[in-house]
């Protein structure tokens, strides 16, 4: 996908140039670029934010929610931390890998789903938990997986 630089400039003009806005801004840019941050997008961000590219890259690579690798249309994040892990989130992850035919961190061939692990998402009352994009799913039973995925197919 080619990067829509015009859209990135629009996003920048929506925010005041305060440092504090940088993170929100990048979230938006990432969304606009299809869930990841291609090289051209980072260069444009660097220019617009007047922030050198090494800093932009250092920043982006620090935060797990940003990616400089292509990702699918929907991101599935399976919680891997203690409370969920003891309640079967690892099995859930296995099932998803099998169902989508990808490894952890990979994107399906049709670019539809990317499967990732996440640290605790605060849904431990309903472990095992996972998120698809901004939607949280708790108590995910293996049987229910397919019907959840269907919504996004």
């Amino acid at each position: 996908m080619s990067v829509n630089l015009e859209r990135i400039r629009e996003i920048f003009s929506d925010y005041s140039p305060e440092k504090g806005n940088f993170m929100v801004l990048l979230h938006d840019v990432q969304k606009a670029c299809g869930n990841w941050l291609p090289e051209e997008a980072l260069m444009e961000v660097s220019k617009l934010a007047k922030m050198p590219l090494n800093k932009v890259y250092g920043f982006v690579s620090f935060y797990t929610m940003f990616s400089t690798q292509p990702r699918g249309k929907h991101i599935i994040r399976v919680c891997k931390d203690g409370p969920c892990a003891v309640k079967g989130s690892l099995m859930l992850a296995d099932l998803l890998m099998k169902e989508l035919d990808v490894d952890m961190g990979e994107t399906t061939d049709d670019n539809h789903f990317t499967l990732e692990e996440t640290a605790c998402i605060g849904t431990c009352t309903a472990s095992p938990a996972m998120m698809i994009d901004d939607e949280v799913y708790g108590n995910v039973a293996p049987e229910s997986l397919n019907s959840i995925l269907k919504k996004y197919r």
Partner: protein
Amino acid sequence: MSEMIKVNIDGIEVEVESGATVLSACEKAGVKVPVLCHHPDLNVAGVCRVCMVEIEGMGNLQASCAYPVTQPLTVKTKTNRVRKARRMNLDLVLAEHYGDCYTCPRNGNCELRTLADEYGVDKFKFPHVDKPRYAKDTKSFSIIRDQDKCIHCKRCIRTCIDMQKVNVYETANKGHDVEIQVALNKSIADVVCINCGQCVNRCPTGALWTQDVSDQVWEDIENPDLFVIMQTAPSPRAAIGEEFGYPPGTRVTKKLNAAMRRAGFDKVLDTNFAADLTIMEEGTELLERLHKVIVKKDKSVKIPMFTSCSPGWVKFIEHYYPDHLDHLSTCKSPQQMYGAVIKTYYAEKIGIDPSKIRTVALMPCSAKKYECNRPEMNASGYRDVDYGLTTREMAMMLKEAGLHLADMPTEEFDPVLGEGSGAGMIFGATGGVMEAAIRTVYELVTGRPVPFERLNITPVRGMEAIKEASLKLEKVKKEYKWLEGVELKIAVAHGTANAKILMDKLVDGTLDYHFIEVMACPGGCLGGGGQPIPTTPEIRKARANAIYQEDEEIEIRKSHENPLIQKLYKEFLGKPGSHKSHELLHTHYTKRGQYFVKD
């Protein structure tokens, strides 16, 4: 701020300024504390955690390099608790570091190895991390990166970002995946690196190094068909002694001459000669520019003019201020001027086919390696300069050949193009080019020597970040009537961070000077990235002293009075700024910008 506060270090009382670090108090008390991420030139990081000390009243140990003294403190540096923590953190570092000291350029001068030695590391406490090995980045003409040896001390980042205001490195990723990276994992050759080598000079390990061309030089020396000519810059001469155990600031020029001849160089020439040539060309260019601006009101001609002898600085402005390249003098650096003259005029003089000549430049600088490889640097019809060697590389070559400076006799440079004036000598220190230029320009314009005691233009000397001075031109010679009463305003900046301050003013339109000297490295070339490690503020001062002493001892102290220079113009170039000069001694620049091109 200057309130003094008492600190007790292992029973020794010292006083330090409020805000000073505990580490500096320890130094003052003569107590040595090991460090890996601290460097006297750099901002505090506090990440390696080997400088830990016990501060009374604090629950945990504290990093002495990062802890500011704001109230009286009692500090212990030798307790078992401290020793164990330091040793343990060192053990952890050793487990992440792929050490192969035999083949490492820092063997013998490695801060990590030294610490391991001092702390009696006799076994690996922890298994080695099992991260995949990195491929070495050797694409740059100047800098090599071997990330397997990186210990994440971030000195290079702080050097490049804070000290040089170039933005090459940053930490990437988090957790155990942290690595020191170039933006988007590019090769250092493909980004804004200006090749200054300051990061190399501060890296505690062999993770950063400069390209080594000594093997090629050895081969050329041994090749009977080739005639290998060495030119040596002033700064290496003021520093190479350090590699042989002399204290910083020891002058070894003449011993070095002898050693290099024994190593097999066919001629040993003095780059100071080319520095004098640079002054002639640059001084003339300055006067021409002033004339066009003041008399002809030519808007296309740009003032202030910036010096262009520092290839790191040239690349800095190409990347960061590509729209202001017109302010750069078109003069090549002395190294490149020399190369061009050697392969033309000098070749003819000594009767050797220039295609058989190899020119080698001994430089304090890693950017010179890049400079001599710039595609446009072939005015002589050949590569003007074939190899740039750093001071460190030269020392290694000499040691390899068993040539120790202490054992060497003293020898002079080769004649014909062999000698430079004192003005050329001081090129090595920040302010030196300016001083040399002013000695000549003032005299050209007024017919009188500069009005400073013993010709020492002290306002442009010293390690102040930005130095400025002005000089009123009065009772000028007839042909310079248009300059009568003009106050010549000059400035000197060293380190690209300081240069950036001036450039930002230029962009704002508030920069009011005629002539500005910039050297990419702190202290000027004597603090270059190819100089012996360590380089610290004290060591830079000592090297500067050596350079200024040598200037005072040279009989000819003004470039235009160098008889060899006069001869060169008479026999070959015509006059400064002539067509021939432009062909051989001047160059042009490239707009680069801050982003790599996608290939």
